[in-house]
């Protein structure tokens, strides 16, 4: 029981991170109907930026944790959004209106490019940073097993909840959100009504990248190690989360992320840890086969 509770906490933490990345997939899919295969690698880049920023702070003898976290978040969000913007501008925008597969292949190219440029410029070895947030609260001191929620886990869950609320507010209440939803429904009509479609799409990519940057910082804080390959699996899992929740739906992405996180930690704890990635891929295949519109998505009608 205590063990299960601990897995629940771990799963929620993991799921919150997947959810943050999944929002990037789901927004981009909603607005231009493409799978941004490079999103996982954008997340990886942000984690590297976070490592560098933490190392700079350590060298500058900054000991205040809230200050350090704020600084790293701002730096990481800034540079990662720049990456999101640049990727959209160079690799996807020229292909708008092309066949469906062209942007996807281009995205795979970007993904390979980012992975290898990070490997070349930052090295192929894992980067460990000293623990930023240690310790936590003991929730339940059961006999033989202590259930504990770490400060970093709490940070991740709280940040995700705040960001999700802010995001929902932005999409539903602000002028930008309205333009974004308009582009999602009908780009031609939106541009006729004076919405700058290209700019809205650019902002969407930057926002997605910013959320991935938050996830990247959180991963760095939580695991303390980063390597150039983390983007691939995290990207696939977040995409699975987006599909599971219903691609194009923001609450769906969050729900999907939580479910994937929970499934993964319980699978690893009770079944076979070495096959935990197979579980994710299996779920992805099952969802796509049985309910392609996901849990909260609306079915897509293909128009001629």
């Amino acid at each position: 029981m205590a063990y299960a509770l601990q897995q629940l906490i771990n799963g929620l933490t993991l799921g919150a991170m997947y959810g943050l990345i999944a929002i990037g997939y789901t927004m981009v899919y909603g607005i231009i109907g493409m799978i941004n295969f490079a999103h996982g690698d954008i997340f990886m880049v942000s984690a590297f930026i976070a490592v560098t920023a933490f190392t700079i702070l350590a060298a500058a003898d900054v000991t205040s944790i809230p200050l350090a976290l704020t600084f790293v978040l701002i730096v990481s969000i800034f540079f990662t959004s720049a990456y999101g913007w640049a990727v959209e501008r160079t690799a996807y925008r020229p292909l708008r209106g092309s066949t469906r597969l062209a942007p996807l292949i281009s995205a795979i190219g970007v993904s390979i490019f980012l992975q290898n440029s990070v490997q070349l410029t930052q090295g192929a070895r894992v980067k460990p940073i000293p623990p930023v947030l240690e310790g936590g609260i003991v929730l339940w001191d059961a006999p033989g097993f202590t259930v504990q929620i770490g400060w970093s886990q709490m940070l991740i869950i709280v940040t995700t909840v705040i960001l999700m609320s802010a995001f929902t507010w932005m999409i539903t209440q602000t002028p930008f959100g309205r333009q974004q939803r308009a582009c999602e429904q009908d780009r031609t009509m939106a541009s006729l009504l004076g919405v700058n479609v290209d700019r809205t799409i650019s902002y969407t990519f930057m926002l997605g990248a910013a959320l991935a940057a938050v996830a990247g910082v959180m991963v760095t804080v939580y695991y303390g190690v980063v390597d150039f390959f983390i983007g691939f699996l995290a990207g696939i899992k977040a995409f699975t989360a987006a599909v599971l929740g219903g691609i194009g739906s923001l609450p769906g992405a969050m729900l999907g992320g939580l479910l994937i996180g929970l499934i993964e930690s319980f699978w690893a704890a009770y079944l076979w840890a070495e096959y935990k990635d197979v579980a994710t891929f299996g779920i992805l295949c099952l969802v796509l086969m049985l309910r392609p519109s996901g849990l909260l998505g609306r079915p897509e009608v293909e128009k001629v």
Partner: protein
Amino acid sequence: MSAVVFARHAMTPAERLRDAGWVAFVGLILGIPLVGLTTVDVGGRLGVETRFGLLAAAVAAVFAGRLLLRWAIDQARNRKQDRDRASTATAADRAHGAQRVVNVLGWVALGASIALPIVFSDNRYVVDTATTVLIYVMLGWGLNVVVGLAGLLDLGYVAFYAVGAYSYALLSTQFGWSFWEALPVSGAMAATFGILLGYPILRLRGDYLAIVTLGFGEIVRIILVNWTEFSNGPNGISSIPRPSFFGLDFSRSAPEGGQTFAGFFGLEFSPMHRLIFLYYLILVLALLTHAFVSRLRKLPVGRAWEALREDEIACQAMGMNTTNIKLSAFAIGAMLGGFAGVFFAARQGFISPESFTFTESAIILAIVVLGGMGSQMGVVLAATLLVLIPEFGRNFAEYRMLLFGLAMVLIMVWRPGGLLSHREPTVRLNALGKASATKEAA
């Protein structure tokens, strides 16, 4: 509304400078965290190292590159306009002319590939590299059926390659099957996997299909790594028997009751015999693949693939069974990948899950995409380039994947159809098209 907005007029020098300056500024922002700063291990802890000199060089390179690119684009556009005005040839004529050049190139390449081991009969390195090129050509042709002809993006093609390789490895080491006995069985095995995987997922739309195939490829690899009793896990399977020449071994001394190749023909033993034999073996396999695929393209099923690639909804409206058509493309592609896998296992004599990663899938896909989806000659060109480029300079090798990625993006942006793309249907209805189609087939 969302069309690409390129400057319609040639840019003035001032505009070009401003444009290049802006691009260089973006490059600077992007470069700071990755190029300008890096973390290095200093006595067990990370320390920051700055590389602003490198960053400045990179930004300067971006500036100059953008300036040149803009200039080149303008020049190319002007020249194209002049040419269009001057020549009366239609686009169809030009495409036809290009096709003829490609055909001639094909014969030259065939002649060269047959002559290669004769010319380089004592150069182990050349024959080995050429064999690798041919493996990729064969894989590319197999994947071309799925991606280029049927328009299904398969990101897990390496799974079928792995199925073929492991089938042969297990059949030969566990049950003592020979190469020739195992080849068709392994191909059938890969095709069965293709059908089993394809059946449930082929109703999915293009990009979902891509992700599911990617997942399948990873599942196969994870199972190969973890199911140790079956596949010997990460250690792989070693001492896989090599193929023999109609029962003649390529070893130095004959096995019991057998004869060696060298002994039978009265030649002096040389390890090159086996390499050259393997080279010709893969050449024959690849040519058979080519003949098979070109014939299929003329059959109703081949035409159905191309129709499906162009417009799935129209195909459904015409009463075509899209699932079966996709399934046939998937199964045939998988089978060809399986054959290539058998050859790979037989040539290496050792296989492990390391050889079947997503990177490998991406390389095969890059070959198909760069070559021009659907173009057989393009695959040959791209496979040769992609294998040879890293061979030319060992320092270059670590940039190989970086360049792959870059090339995939650039080629998609510049020519979404690939280097030698012609999305012309293989078969035409009018008389001229028919004549040219039969000529191409010859």
